[in-house]
């Protein structure tokens, strides 16, 4: 069970290292977005800073995760079909995308904090929230990418399908990240929010495992 997942992961990492243009493409995307933002505004208020940060995460994720299924050609999918089970395949994709997105989120946080002002008072806590957020967003978009790949490889469809679904998660994340700006929360509300986000994440993984076998059949 675990061995094929590991092999698939290794394949994705190797592909990423050999075709570095995609990886650098995303990094450049992050850097230029943050740079343009820093040129257009002087000082950002904490709320705006927070909102813009998550919007950037959303678009970075669309760009980073979108190709995970779009790059697989029909022939390659047929080959995977004959050697691994759909559950192994989707788990490998999820793990890979979550790791990729967490990395990208942390890079964008770093650039964001360097180029713009930094209203975060509890940096470690905010980094933790960013890791949780990046993972959550990439989970949703992994499945959306799998769906969109079936619809004639239509990349624009990922945004259309994913945005309404990601909204509740994003609202919760924005709420939660206010904790790092010294906003006072009701007793236990912070734990409740974190629990809700983790619960939603587990739900998404469960749904992906249940539903992906239906997407996979041609």
């Amino acid at each position: 069970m675990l061995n094929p997942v590991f092999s698939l992961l290794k394949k994705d990492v190797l592909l990423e290292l050999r075709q570095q243009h995609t990886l650098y493409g995303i990094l450049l995307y992050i850097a230029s977005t943050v740079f343009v933002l820093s040129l257009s505004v002087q000082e950002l208020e904490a709320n705006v800073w927070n909102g813009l940060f998550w919007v950037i995460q959303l678009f970075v994720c669309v760009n980073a995760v979108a190709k995970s299924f779009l790059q697989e050609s029909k022939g390659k999918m047929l080959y995977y079909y004959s050697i691994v089970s759909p559950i192994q395949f989707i788990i490998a994709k999820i793990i890979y995308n979550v790791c990729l997105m967490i990395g990208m989120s942390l890079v964008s946080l770093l650039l964001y904090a360097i180029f713009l002002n930094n209203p975060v008072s509890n940096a470690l806590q905010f980094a933790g929230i960013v890791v949780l957020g990046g993972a959550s967003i990439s989970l949703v978009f992994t499945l959306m990418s799998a769906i969109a790949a079936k619809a004639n490889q239509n990349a624009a469809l990922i945004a259309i399908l994913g945005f309404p679904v990601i909204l509740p998660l994003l609202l919760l994340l924005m709420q939660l990240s206010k904790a790092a700006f010294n906003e006072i929360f009701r007793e236990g509300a912070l734990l409740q929010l974190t629990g809700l986000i983790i619960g939603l994440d587990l739900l998404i993984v469960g749904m992906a495992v249940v539903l992906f076998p239906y997407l996979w059949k041609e």
Partner: protein
Amino acid sequence: MKVNKSWWKIASFLLLVYTIVGGFLMEVPHLPILNETIRNLYFHVAMWFGMMILFMASFAYSIKYLRGFNYRNDIYAKQFAALGSLFGILGYTTGAIWVSVTWLTDQSQSIGSVMKEPKLIGAAIALLIYGAYFVLRGSFTDIDKRARISAVYNIFAFVMLFPSIWIIPRLVGSLHPGAPGSDSGNPALNFKDVDLRLRMVFYPAVIGWTLLGVWIATLKIRLQLMNDKSLLPETPTKK
């Protein structure tokens, strides 16, 4: 006695006649700000109930489709989703009328703060999800593939919709009843919250509107089943 199988259509008609006549003429509690607009409860809230029930039907038929790959179930899922969206739009419209004479005028809320209402956001998410569902359906030419992939999206999206409509509005402050602070659970089902005089019309109204929605959906389903007759596997017609 033979039970007429269209009894529920007659029931729907009678309940809606009662809703409209009773809703406009019967006694209602007099509350500040709300005044007579409280009668909108029978129309506005009933729309959201109808929408949720129709979306649930669509969700159930999508699951059924994935279990047997019967094209009939895809038609059911699509038409229930379409009718649910229509109810959602009507819910928005009735809500907008209600807002314009209560929150905006008497409570002097700005449009901006009304738009940030968690329930409005939840409803907007629902409509966007089903909008995306129809866009997704439109992007396929292969009927079987369209049915399968859109069923997967429908199931996933409905499950994700659930927290945004039922959990998040309960966690954050809201102008609607049912937010924290108003110490009620689900305001529509809580007996302490809704006056007896309102409930006498409200529950029949919910049932009546929902039945009407199902009725319209079944008509559209029958029409499409006839159009796509050649695509359907031979099934014995139900008696």
